[in-house]
Protein backbone atom coordinates (compact mmCIF):
# COMPACT_ATOMS: atom_id res chain seq x y z
CA UNK A 1 0.00 0.00 0.00
CA UNK A 2 2.53 2.55 1.18
CA UNK A 3 4.89 1.64 -1.65
CA UNK A 4 2.17 2.27 -4.24
CA UNK A 5 1.43 5.63 -2.68
CA UNK A 6 5.10 6.60 -2.69
CA UNK A 7 5.32 5.85 -6.40
CA UNK A 8 2.09 7.70 -7.20
CA UNK A 9 3.10 10.69 -5.09
CA UNK A 10 6.14 11.02 -7.33
CA UNK A 11 4.25 10.46 -10.55
CA UNK A 12 0.46 10.46 -10.59
CA UNK A 13 0.51 9.14 -14.15
CA UNK A 14 2.27 5.89 -13.27
CA UNK A 15 0.00 3.13 -14.57
CA UNK A 16 -0.84 0.00 -12.58
CA UNK A 17 1.29 -1.96 -15.07
CA UNK A 18 4.32 0.26 -14.45
CA UNK A 19 3.88 0.18 -10.69
CA UNK A 20 3.49 -3.59 -10.79
CA UNK A 21 6.76 -3.93 -12.74
CA UNK A 22 8.60 -1.74 -10.25
CA UNK A 23 7.29 -3.71 -7.30
CA UNK A 24 7.52 -7.13 -8.89
CA UNK A 25 3.81 -7.81 -8.25
CA UNK A 26 0.83 -8.79 -10.43
CA UNK A 27 -0.82 -5.88 -12.19
CA UNK A 28 -4.36 -6.87 -11.09
CA UNK A 29 -3.36 -6.70 -7.42
CA UNK A 30 -1.87 -3.25 -7.83
CA UNK A 31 -4.92 -1.99 -9.76
CA UNK A 32 -7.22 -3.34 -7.07
CA UNK A 33 -5.26 -1.70 -4.28
CA UNK A 34 -5.25 1.64 -6.08
CA UNK A 35 -9.02 1.38 -6.45
CA UNK A 36 -9.33 0.68 -2.72
CA UNK A 37 -7.13 3.65 -1.90
CA UNK A 38 -9.27 5.86 -4.11
CA UNK A 39 -12.56 4.55 -2.69
CA UNK A 40 -11.47 4.97 0.90
CA UNK A 41 -10.30 8.53 0.22
CA UNK A 42 -6.64 7.95 1.01
CA UNK A 43 -6.00 9.08 -2.56
CA UNK A 44 -7.99 12.31 -2.80
CA UNK A 45 -7.09 13.55 -6.23
CA UNK A 46 -4.40 13.35 -8.90
CA UNK A 47 -2.90 16.78 -9.50
CA UNK A 48 -0.37 18.35 -11.85
CA UNK A 49 2.49 20.49 -10.62
CA UNK A 50 2.55 23.56 -12.87
CA UNK A 51 5.18 26.24 -13.03
CA UNK A 52 2.83 29.17 -13.58
CA UNK A 53 5.73 31.58 -13.90
CA UNK A 54 6.53 30.14 -17.28
CA UNK A 55 3.20 31.41 -18.65
CA UNK A 56 2.59 34.89 -20.02
CA UNK A 57 -0.04 35.75 -17.44
CA UNK A 58 1.05 34.21 -14.21
CA UNK A 59 -1.38 33.81 -11.39
CA UNK A 60 -0.88 35.67 -8.16
CA UNK A 61 -0.58 33.61 -5.02
CA UNK A 62 -0.74 34.89 -1.48
CA UNK A 63 -0.34 33.40 1.96
CA UNK A 64 -2.75 34.83 4.54
CA UNK A 65 -2.12 34.57 8.21
CA UNK A 66 -5.29 34.83 10.23
CA UNK A 67 -5.96 35.29 13.90
CA UNK A 68 -9.18 33.60 14.81
CA UNK A 69 -11.33 33.82 17.94
CA UNK A 70 -11.94 30.35 19.29
CA UNK A 71 -15.56 29.38 19.28
CA UNK A 72 -17.28 27.21 21.82
CA UNK A 73 -17.73 23.61 20.63
CA UNK A 74 -16.52 24.07 17.06
CA UNK A 75 -13.09 25.50 17.86
CA UNK A 76 -11.38 26.61 14.68
CA UNK A 77 -13.22 24.17 12.45
CA UNK A 78 -16.29 26.26 11.67
CA UNK A 79 -14.29 29.29 10.52
CA UNK A 80 -11.79 27.12 8.66
CA UNK A 81 -14.55 25.37 6.80
CA UNK A 82 -16.23 28.63 5.78
CA UNK A 83 -12.93 29.85 4.39
CA UNK A 84 -12.21 26.58 2.65
CA UNK A 85 -15.43 26.82 0.65
CA UNK A 86 -14.20 29.77 -1.40
CA UNK A 87 -12.87 28.59 -4.74
CA UNK A 88 -10.10 31.21 -4.57
CA UNK A 89 -8.67 29.40 -1.55
CA UNK A 90 -6.15 26.67 -2.33
CA UNK A 91 -5.31 25.50 1.15
CA UNK A 92 -6.34 26.13 4.73
CA UNK A 93 -4.17 24.95 7.59
CA UNK A 94 -4.25 25.33 11.36
CA UNK A 95 -0.78 26.33 12.47
CA UNK A 96 1.09 26.83 15.69
CA UNK A 97 2.73 30.14 16.59
CA UNK A 98 1.63 33.75 16.30
CA UNK A 99 -1.30 33.05 14.02
CA UNK A 100 -3.98 30.42 13.89
CA UNK A 101 -4.84 29.74 10.27
CA UNK A 102 -2.57 29.82 7.24
CA UNK A 103 -4.50 30.18 3.99
CA UNK A 104 -3.17 30.19 0.44
CA UNK A 105 -5.19 32.13 -2.10
CA UNK A 106 -4.94 32.26 -5.86
CA UNK A 107 -6.08 35.25 -7.90
CA UNK A 108 -5.52 36.88 -11.27
CA UNK A 109 -3.91 40.02 -9.85
CA UNK A 110 -2.75 41.46 -6.55
CA UNK A 111 -5.79 43.71 -6.52
CA UNK A 112 -8.02 40.71 -7.06
CA UNK A 113 -6.54 38.93 -4.06
CA UNK A 114 -6.54 42.05 -1.90
CA UNK A 115 -10.25 42.66 -2.57
CA UNK A 116 -11.05 39.04 -1.93
CA UNK A 117 -9.36 39.21 1.47
CA UNK A 118 -11.01 42.54 2.34
CA UNK A 119 -14.48 41.55 1.21
CA UNK A 120 -14.70 37.87 2.00
CA UNK A 121 -12.19 36.84 4.63
CA UNK A 122 -11.64 39.80 6.94
CA UNK A 123 -15.33 40.39 7.67
CA UNK A 124 -15.98 36.77 8.66
CA UNK A 125 -17.18 36.35 12.17
CA UNK A 126 -14.35 35.06 14.30
CA UNK A 127 -11.57 36.42 12.09
CA UNK A 128 -9.79 38.97 14.26
CA UNK A 129 -6.99 40.00 11.95
CA UNK A 130 -5.47 39.17 8.59
CA UNK A 131 -1.98 39.61 7.22
CA UNK A 132 -1.50 39.06 3.49
CA UNK A 133 1.87 37.96 2.07
CA UNK A 134 2.08 37.95 -1.70
CA UNK A 135 4.30 35.26 -3.11
CA UNK A 136 6.92 36.90 -5.30
CA UNK A 137 8.73 33.84 -6.53
CA UNK A 138 8.49 30.14 -5.91
CA UNK A 139 11.73 28.19 -5.68
CA UNK A 140 10.43 24.78 -4.74
CA UNK A 141 6.96 23.25 -4.81
CA UNK A 142 5.94 19.75 -3.77
CA UNK A 143 9.55 18.70 -3.44
CA UNK A 144 10.47 19.92 -6.94
CA UNK A 145 13.07 22.66 -7.34
CA UNK A 146 11.72 25.03 -9.99
CA UNK A 147 14.98 26.66 -11.01
CA UNK A 148 16.25 25.24 -14.27
CA UNK A 149 19.82 24.11 -13.97
CA UNK A 150 21.67 21.96 -16.49
CA UNK A 151 21.96 18.39 -15.31
CA UNK A 152 25.54 17.53 -14.39
CA UNK A 153 27.08 15.22 -16.94
CA UNK A 154 28.20 11.69 -16.19
CA UNK A 155 30.68 9.78 -18.28
CA UNK A 156 28.79 7.49 -20.63
CA UNK A 157 30.71 4.32 -19.79
CA UNK A 158 32.66 3.63 -16.61
CA UNK A 159 33.96 0.50 -14.93
Amino acid sequence: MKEILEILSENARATPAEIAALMGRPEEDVAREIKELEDSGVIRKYVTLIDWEKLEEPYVFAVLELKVALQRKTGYDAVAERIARFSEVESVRLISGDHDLSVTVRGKSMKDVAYFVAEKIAPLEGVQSTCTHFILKSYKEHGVILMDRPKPKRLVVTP
Partner: protein
Amino acid sequence: MKMQLKNIPAWSSESHLSRIVKDMPPSGIRKFFDLVSEMEGAISLGVGEPDFVTPWHVREACIYSLESGSTSYTSNKGMPELRECISEHTRKDMGLEYNPGDEVLITTGVSEAVDLAFRATLNPGDEVVVPEPCYVAYVPDIILAGGVPVSVPTRLSEEFKVRSEDIAAAITDKTKAIMLSYPNNPTGAVMTRADLEEIADVVVENDLLVVSDEVYGKLSYIDSGRHASFAQLDGMQGRTLILNGLSKSHAMTGWRIGYALGDPAIIGAMTKVHQYTMLCAPVMAQFAALEALQRGEDEMLHMRHEYDLRRRMFVSGLNRIGLECFEPRGAFYAFPSVESTGLSSEEFAGRLLKDQKVAVVPGNVFGPSGEGFLRCSYATSREELIEALDRMEKFLASL
Protein backbone atom coordinates in the same frame (compact mmCIF):
# COMPACT_ATOMS: atom_id res chain seq x y z
CA MET B 1 78.26 30.09 -27.47
CA LYS B 2 75.69 27.60 -28.58
CA MET B 3 76.65 24.05 -27.90
CA GLN B 4 76.78 21.96 -31.02
CA LEU B 5 75.60 18.40 -30.74
CA LYS B 6 76.21 16.16 -33.63
CA ASN B 7 74.17 13.13 -34.53
CA ILE B 8 71.39 13.68 -32.03
CA PRO B 9 69.68 10.31 -31.73
CA ALA B 10 65.91 10.36 -32.20
CA TRP B 11 63.93 10.38 -28.92
CA SER B 12 61.88 7.26 -28.53
CA SER B 13 59.23 7.46 -25.86
CA GLU B 14 58.22 3.85 -26.51
CA SER B 15 61.58 2.57 -25.31
CA HIS B 16 61.18 4.53 -22.10
CA LEU B 17 57.94 2.87 -21.09
CA SER B 18 57.77 0.23 -18.43
CA ARG B 19 57.47 -3.25 -19.90
CA ILE B 20 54.88 -4.20 -17.31
CA VAL B 21 52.68 -1.30 -18.34
CA LYS B 22 53.25 -1.88 -22.05
CA ASP B 23 52.23 -5.51 -21.73
CA MET B 24 49.09 -4.64 -19.83
CA PRO B 25 46.05 -4.82 -22.11
CA PRO B 26 43.99 -1.61 -22.17
CA SER B 27 40.63 -1.77 -20.40
CA GLY B 28 37.98 -3.18 -22.72
CA ILE B 29 35.60 -0.62 -21.28
CA ARG B 30 37.77 2.19 -22.57
CA LYS B 31 37.36 1.01 -26.15
CA PHE B 32 33.61 1.07 -25.75
CA PHE B 33 33.66 4.42 -24.09
CA ASP B 34 35.27 6.01 -27.13
CA LEU B 35 32.58 4.53 -29.38
CA VAL B 36 29.67 5.74 -27.24
CA SER B 37 30.93 9.19 -26.44
CA GLU B 38 30.82 10.18 -30.10
CA MET B 39 27.20 9.13 -30.47
CA GLU B 40 24.24 11.50 -30.19
CA GLY B 41 21.03 10.34 -28.52
CA ALA B 42 22.51 7.18 -27.06
CA ILE B 43 21.08 5.72 -23.87
CA SER B 44 23.90 4.50 -21.71
CA LEU B 45 23.48 1.52 -19.43
CA GLY B 46 27.25 1.41 -19.25
CA VAL B 47 27.75 3.61 -16.25
CA GLY B 48 29.09 2.10 -13.04
CA GLU B 49 27.96 4.92 -10.79
CA PRO B 50 24.74 6.23 -9.26
CA ASP B 51 22.66 8.65 -11.32
CA PHE B 52 21.91 10.55 -8.12
CA VAL B 53 23.87 13.65 -7.30
CA THR B 54 25.49 13.54 -3.85
CA PRO B 55 22.82 14.64 -1.33
CA TRP B 56 22.86 18.38 -0.75
CA HIS B 57 23.60 18.25 2.98
CA VAL B 58 26.84 16.42 2.14
CA ARG B 59 27.85 18.92 -0.53
CA GLU B 60 26.93 21.73 1.83
CA ALA B 61 29.11 20.29 4.60
CA CYS B 62 32.03 20.21 2.19
CA ILE B 63 31.43 23.82 1.16
CA TYR B 64 31.34 24.79 4.82
CA SER B 65 34.63 23.02 5.46
CA LEU B 66 36.19 25.06 2.66
CA GLU B 67 34.68 28.28 3.97
CA SER B 68 36.14 27.60 7.37
CA GLY B 69 39.55 27.10 5.80
CA SER B 70 40.07 23.37 6.34
CA THR B 71 42.42 22.96 3.43
CA SER B 72 45.50 21.30 4.90
CA TYR B 73 46.81 17.73 4.96
CA THR B 74 45.20 15.35 7.38
CA SER B 75 46.83 12.51 9.26
CA ASN B 76 48.13 9.93 6.75
CA LYS B 77 45.54 7.51 8.02
CA GLY B 78 42.75 10.06 7.57
CA MET B 79 40.98 12.42 9.96
CA PRO B 80 40.60 10.80 13.41
CA GLU B 81 36.88 11.80 13.56
CA LEU B 82 36.22 10.07 10.26
CA ARG B 83 38.10 6.92 11.31
CA GLU B 84 36.17 6.83 14.57
CA CYS B 85 32.92 7.31 12.70
CA ILE B 86 33.71 4.48 10.28
CA SER B 87 34.70 2.24 13.16
CA GLU B 88 31.45 3.00 14.97
CA HIS B 89 29.44 2.44 11.81
CA THR B 90 31.08 -0.90 11.14
CA ARG B 91 30.39 -2.01 14.71
CA LYS B 92 26.70 -1.16 14.41
CA ASP B 93 26.26 -2.40 10.86
CA MET B 94 28.33 -5.55 10.85
CA GLY B 95 29.07 -6.29 14.50
CA LEU B 96 32.82 -5.98 13.91
CA GLU B 97 35.25 -4.00 16.07
CA TYR B 98 38.09 -2.07 14.43
CA ASN B 99 40.36 0.20 16.40
CA PRO B 100 40.30 3.61 14.68
CA GLY B 101 43.91 4.09 15.76
CA ASP B 102 45.57 1.30 13.80
CA GLU B 103 42.94 -0.80 12.05
CA VAL B 104 41.30 1.83 9.83
CA LEU B 105 42.86 3.63 6.85
CA ILE B 106 41.11 6.27 4.75
CA THR B 107 42.09 6.01 1.09
CA THR B 108 41.49 7.96 -2.09
CA GLY B 109 38.61 5.82 -3.26
CA VAL B 110 38.42 2.05 -2.95
CA SER B 111 40.61 1.91 -6.06
CA GLU B 112 43.58 3.10 -4.04
CA ALA B 113 42.75 0.67 -1.27
CA VAL B 114 42.84 -2.24 -3.73
CA ASP B 115 46.22 -1.13 -5.04
CA LEU B 116 47.58 -0.67 -1.50
CA ALA B 117 46.28 -4.04 -0.38
CA PHE B 118 48.26 -5.87 -3.06
CA ARG B 119 51.38 -3.74 -2.79
CA ALA B 120 51.44 -4.17 0.97
CA THR B 121 51.04 -7.95 0.93
CA LEU B 122 52.47 -9.48 -2.26
CA ASN B 123 56.02 -10.58 -2.91
CA PRO B 124 57.09 -11.05 -6.53
CA GLY B 125 55.45 -14.19 -7.88
CA ASP B 126 52.83 -14.49 -5.16
CA GLU B 127 49.53 -15.66 -6.58
CA VAL B 128 46.10 -14.19 -5.91
CA VAL B 129 42.94 -16.12 -6.70
CA VAL B 130 40.51 -13.84 -8.51
CA PRO B 131 36.95 -15.07 -9.10
CA GLU B 132 35.66 -13.74 -12.42
CA PRO B 133 33.76 -11.99 -13.89
CA CYS B 134 34.90 -9.10 -11.74
CA TYR B 135 35.74 -5.42 -11.68
CA VAL B 136 38.43 -4.62 -14.22
CA ALA B 137 41.11 -3.26 -11.87
CA TYR B 138 41.98 -6.27 -9.71
CA VAL B 139 44.08 -8.13 -12.27
CA PRO B 140 46.18 -5.11 -13.37
CA ASP B 141 46.63 -4.03 -9.74
CA ILE B 142 47.94 -7.48 -8.81
CA ILE B 143 50.35 -7.42 -11.76
CA LEU B 144 51.55 -3.91 -10.87
CA ALA B 145 52.28 -5.15 -7.36
CA GLY B 146 54.44 -7.95 -8.79
CA GLY B 147 51.86 -10.64 -8.10
CA VAL B 148 50.28 -13.19 -10.38
CA PRO B 149 46.50 -13.20 -10.77
CA VAL B 150 44.92 -16.63 -11.07
CA SER B 151 41.43 -16.43 -12.49
CA VAL B 152 38.70 -18.69 -11.26
CA PRO B 153 35.41 -18.78 -13.16
CA THR B 154 32.00 -18.31 -11.63
CA ARG B 155 28.90 -19.48 -13.44
CA LEU B 156 25.32 -18.52 -14.11
CA SER B 157 24.21 -21.99 -12.94
CA GLU B 158 25.76 -21.23 -9.54
CA GLU B 159 24.43 -17.67 -9.40
CA PHE B 160 27.95 -16.37 -9.99
CA LYS B 161 29.08 -17.33 -6.49
CA VAL B 162 32.61 -18.64 -6.15
CA ARG B 163 32.80 -22.33 -5.19
CA SER B 164 35.32 -23.99 -2.92
CA GLU B 165 36.19 -26.67 -5.55
CA ASP B 166 37.19 -23.96 -8.01
CA ILE B 167 39.27 -22.18 -5.41
CA ALA B 168 40.93 -25.44 -4.37
CA ALA B 169 41.81 -26.21 -8.00
CA ALA B 170 43.58 -22.87 -8.34
CA ILE B 171 45.72 -23.21 -5.23
CA THR B 172 49.50 -23.69 -5.60
CA ASP B 173 52.27 -23.28 -3.06
CA LYS B 174 52.52 -19.65 -4.17
CA THR B 175 48.90 -18.74 -3.47
CA LYS B 176 48.76 -15.99 -0.90
CA ALA B 177 45.36 -14.36 -1.11
CA ILE B 178 41.91 -14.49 -2.58
CA MET B 179 40.00 -11.49 -3.90
CA LEU B 180 36.30 -11.45 -3.03
CA SER B 181 34.03 -8.80 -4.52
CA TYR B 182 30.44 -9.27 -3.46
CA PRO B 183 27.92 -7.77 -4.09
CA ASN B 184 29.56 -8.19 -7.45
CA ASN B 185 30.24 -5.84 -10.30
CA PRO B 186 29.29 -6.88 -13.04
CA THR B 187 26.95 -9.77 -12.16
CA GLY B 188 24.98 -8.41 -9.19
CA ALA B 189 25.65 -11.67 -7.33
CA VAL B 190 25.68 -11.66 -3.54
CA MET B 191 27.33 -14.15 -1.19
CA THR B 192 25.42 -14.72 2.02
CA ARG B 193 26.91 -15.91 5.27
CA ALA B 194 26.02 -19.49 4.38
CA ASP B 195 27.71 -19.16 0.98
CA LEU B 196 30.85 -17.80 2.59
CA GLU B 197 30.93 -20.59 5.16
CA GLU B 198 31.18 -23.03 2.25
CA ILE B 199 34.50 -21.56 1.18
CA ALA B 200 35.89 -20.91 4.67
CA ASP B 201 37.57 -24.33 4.95
CA VAL B 202 39.58 -23.99 1.77
CA VAL B 203 40.61 -20.47 2.76
CA VAL B 204 41.82 -21.56 6.19
CA GLU B 205 43.51 -24.78 5.00
CA ASN B 206 45.57 -22.76 2.56
CA ASP B 207 46.14 -19.92 4.98
CA LEU B 208 44.84 -17.32 2.53
CA LEU B 209 44.42 -13.63 3.13
CA VAL B 210 40.95 -12.55 2.03
CA VAL B 211 40.81 -9.18 0.30
CA SER B 212 37.13 -8.26 0.29
CA ASP B 213 35.91 -5.36 -1.84
CA GLU B 214 32.54 -4.51 -0.30
CA VAL B 215 31.90 -1.16 -1.95
CA TYR B 216 28.42 -2.38 -2.95
CA GLY B 217 27.83 -3.88 0.51
CA LYS B 218 24.97 -1.56 1.38
CA LEU B 219 23.27 -2.25 -1.95
CA SER B 220 21.91 -5.70 -1.21
CA TYR B 221 18.20 -6.03 -1.82
CA ILE B 222 16.83 -9.29 -0.57
CA ASP B 223 16.30 -9.96 3.12
CA SER B 224 16.71 -13.71 2.82
CA GLY B 225 19.90 -13.30 0.79
CA ARG B 226 21.69 -10.41 2.41
CA HIS B 227 25.31 -9.71 1.73
CA ALA B 228 27.68 -10.82 4.47
CA SER B 229 31.37 -10.15 4.90
CA PHE B 230 33.93 -12.91 5.24
CA ALA B 231 35.18 -11.00 8.28
CA GLN B 232 31.88 -11.77 10.02
CA LEU B 233 32.51 -15.52 10.04
CA ASP B 234 33.78 -16.90 13.33
CA GLY B 235 37.49 -16.35 13.67
CA MET B 236 37.91 -14.85 10.20
CA GLN B 237 38.17 -11.16 10.98
CA GLY B 238 41.96 -11.28 11.29
CA ARG B 239 42.60 -12.79 7.88
CA THR B 240 40.08 -10.54 6.12
CA LEU B 241 40.90 -7.14 4.76
CA ILE B 242 37.69 -5.20 4.12
CA LEU B 243 37.81 -2.51 1.45
CA ASN B 244 34.84 -0.19 1.34
CA GLY B 245 33.83 3.34 0.49
CA LEU B 246 30.98 5.77 0.05
CA SER B 247 30.96 6.02 -3.74
CA LYS B 248 28.10 3.68 -4.49
CA SER B 249 26.04 3.77 -1.29
CA HIS B 250 26.03 7.54 -0.87
CA ALA B 251 26.36 8.59 -4.52
CA MET B 252 29.85 9.96 -3.97
CA THR B 253 31.97 8.48 -6.77
CA GLY B 254 33.81 11.67 -7.69
CA TRP B 255 34.82 12.45 -4.11
CA ARG B 256 37.24 9.53 -4.03
CA ILE B 257 36.81 8.36 -0.45
CA GLY B 258 37.39 4.74 0.43
CA TYR B 259 38.69 2.91 3.46
CA ALA B 260 40.38 -0.28 4.54
CA LEU B 261 39.63 -2.22 7.72
CA GLY B 262 41.89 -4.98 8.89
CA ASP B 263 44.68 -6.38 10.96
CA PRO B 264 47.03 -3.66 12.33
CA ALA B 265 50.11 -5.13 10.59
CA ILE B 266 48.44 -5.06 7.18
CA ILE B 267 46.82 -1.64 7.70
CA GLY B 268 50.22 -0.41 8.89
CA ALA B 269 51.95 -1.71 5.76
CA MET B 270 49.26 -0.17 3.55
CA THR B 271 49.63 3.13 5.40
CA LYS B 272 53.34 3.09 4.66
CA VAL B 273 52.73 2.87 0.90
CA HIS B 274 49.86 5.34 1.16
CA GLN B 275 51.96 7.96 2.93
CA TYR B 276 54.66 7.83 0.25
CA THR B 277 52.29 7.84 -2.69
CA MET B 278 49.08 9.65 -1.73
CA LEU B 279 49.98 11.22 1.61
CA CYS B 280 46.34 11.50 2.57
CA ALA B 281 42.87 11.49 1.04
CA PRO B 282 41.58 14.97 0.07
CA VAL B 283 40.54 16.80 3.22
CA MET B 284 37.34 18.34 1.84
CA ALA B 285 36.15 14.95 0.68
CA GLN B 286 36.87 13.55 4.14
CA PHE B 287 34.60 16.21 5.66
CA ALA B 288 31.91 15.29 3.17
CA ALA B 289 32.28 11.61 4.00
CA LEU B 290 31.91 12.36 7.70
CA GLU B 291 28.66 14.20 7.06
CA ALA B 292 27.39 11.40 4.81
CA LEU B 293 28.05 8.75 7.46
CA GLN B 294 26.67 10.79 10.34
CA ARG B 295 23.51 12.09 8.71
CA GLY B 296 23.11 10.35 5.38
CA GLU B 297 21.32 7.16 6.36
CA ASP B 298 17.84 8.21 5.19
CA GLU B 299 19.00 9.35 1.80
CA MET B 300 21.09 6.23 1.35
CA LEU B 301 18.04 4.07 2.10
CA HIS B 302 15.94 6.16 -0.26
CA MET B 303 18.42 5.63 -3.10
CA ARG B 304 18.68 1.94 -2.36
CA HIS B 305 14.90 1.64 -2.50
CA GLU B 306 14.82 3.39 -5.85
CA TYR B 307 17.49 1.02 -7.23
CA ASP B 308 15.44 -1.89 -5.96
CA LEU B 309 12.31 -0.69 -7.80
CA ARG B 310 14.28 -0.26 -11.00
CA ARG B 311 15.97 -3.62 -10.49
CA ARG B 312 12.66 -5.44 -10.42
CA MET B 313 11.26 -3.54 -13.37
CA PHE B 314 14.38 -3.84 -15.51
CA VAL B 315 15.16 -7.49 -14.84
CA SER B 316 11.59 -8.59 -15.51
CA GLY B 317 11.72 -6.44 -18.65
CA LEU B 318 14.87 -8.18 -19.88
CA ASN B 319 13.33 -11.59 -19.32
CA ARG B 320 10.13 -10.47 -21.07
CA ILE B 321 11.93 -9.37 -24.23
CA GLY B 322 13.84 -12.65 -24.31
CA LEU B 323 17.20 -11.90 -22.73
CA GLU B 324 17.41 -14.44 -19.95
CA CYS B 325 18.59 -12.70 -16.83
CA PHE B 326 19.56 -14.11 -13.48
CA GLU B 327 18.07 -12.15 -10.60
CA PRO B 328 20.78 -9.81 -9.36
CA ARG B 329 20.65 -9.43 -5.57
CA GLY B 330 23.03 -6.57 -5.07
CA ALA B 331 24.97 -3.67 -6.66
CA PHE B 332 23.10 -2.00 -9.54
CA TYR B 333 23.79 -4.25 -12.48
CA ALA B 334 21.79 -6.77 -14.44
CA PHE B 335 23.82 -9.40 -16.28
CA PRO B 336 21.61 -10.89 -18.98
CA SER B 337 22.74 -13.74 -21.22
CA VAL B 338 22.88 -13.24 -25.00
CA GLU B 339 23.36 -16.92 -25.67
CA SER B 340 19.91 -17.25 -27.27
CA THR B 341 20.93 -14.80 -30.00
CA GLY B 342 24.02 -16.71 -31.07
CA LEU B 343 26.04 -13.51 -30.89
CA SER B 344 29.14 -12.94 -28.81
CA SER B 345 29.01 -10.30 -26.08
CA GLU B 346 31.03 -7.87 -28.14
CA GLU B 347 29.04 -8.43 -31.34
CA PHE B 348 25.79 -7.95 -29.48
CA ALA B 349 26.93 -4.82 -27.64
CA GLY B 350 28.51 -3.34 -30.77
CA ARG B 351 25.48 -3.91 -32.98
CA LEU B 352 23.01 -2.82 -30.31
CA LEU B 353 24.90 0.44 -30.02
CA LYS B 354 25.07 0.95 -33.78
CA ASP B 355 21.46 -0.05 -34.56
CA GLN B 356 19.54 1.22 -31.54
CA LYS B 357 21.96 3.49 -29.72
CA VAL B 358 21.88 1.65 -26.43
CA ALA B 359 25.23 1.25 -24.72
CA VAL B 360 25.85 -1.80 -22.57
CA VAL B 361 29.19 -3.30 -21.59
CA PRO B 362 30.12 -6.69 -23.07
CA GLY B 363 30.59 -9.23 -20.28
CA ASN B 364 33.93 -10.55 -21.53
CA VAL B 365 35.51 -7.25 -20.45
CA PHE B 366 35.19 -8.57 -16.89
CA GLY B 367 36.98 -11.84 -17.58
CA PRO B 368 36.57 -14.81 -19.93
CA SER B 369 33.70 -16.28 -17.90
CA GLY B 370 31.75 -13.10 -18.60
CA GLU B 371 31.55 -14.05 -22.29
CA GLY B 372 27.96 -14.50 -23.43
CA PHE B 373 26.65 -11.83 -21.05
CA LEU B 374 26.11 -8.08 -20.95
CA ARG B 375 26.48 -5.72 -18.06
CA CYS B 376 23.56 -3.32 -17.92
CA SER B 377 23.56 -0.72 -15.18
CA TYR B 378 20.14 0.20 -13.83
CA ALA B 379 21.55 3.24 -12.06
CA THR B 380 19.75 5.37 -14.59
CA SER B 381 16.27 6.92 -14.67
CA ARG B 382 13.17 4.75 -15.00
CA GLU B 383 12.22 6.53 -18.23
CA GLU B 384 15.59 5.73 -19.77
CA LEU B 385 15.39 2.12 -18.64
CA ILE B 386 11.96 1.73 -20.25
CA GLU B 387 13.20 3.35 -23.45
CA ALA B 388 16.30 1.13 -23.43
CA LEU B 389 14.15 -1.99 -23.06
CA ASP B 390 12.02 -0.87 -26.02
CA ARG B 391 15.06 -0.36 -28.16
CA MET B 392 16.59 -3.67 -27.13
CA GLU B 393 13.34 -5.43 -28.00
CA LYS B 394 13.43 -3.84 -31.47
CA PHE B 395 17.04 -4.89 -31.86
CA LEU B 396 16.24 -8.49 -30.92
CA ALA B 397 13.37 -8.54 -33.41
CA SER B 398 15.75 -7.40 -36.15
CA LEU B 399 18.18 -10.29 -35.63
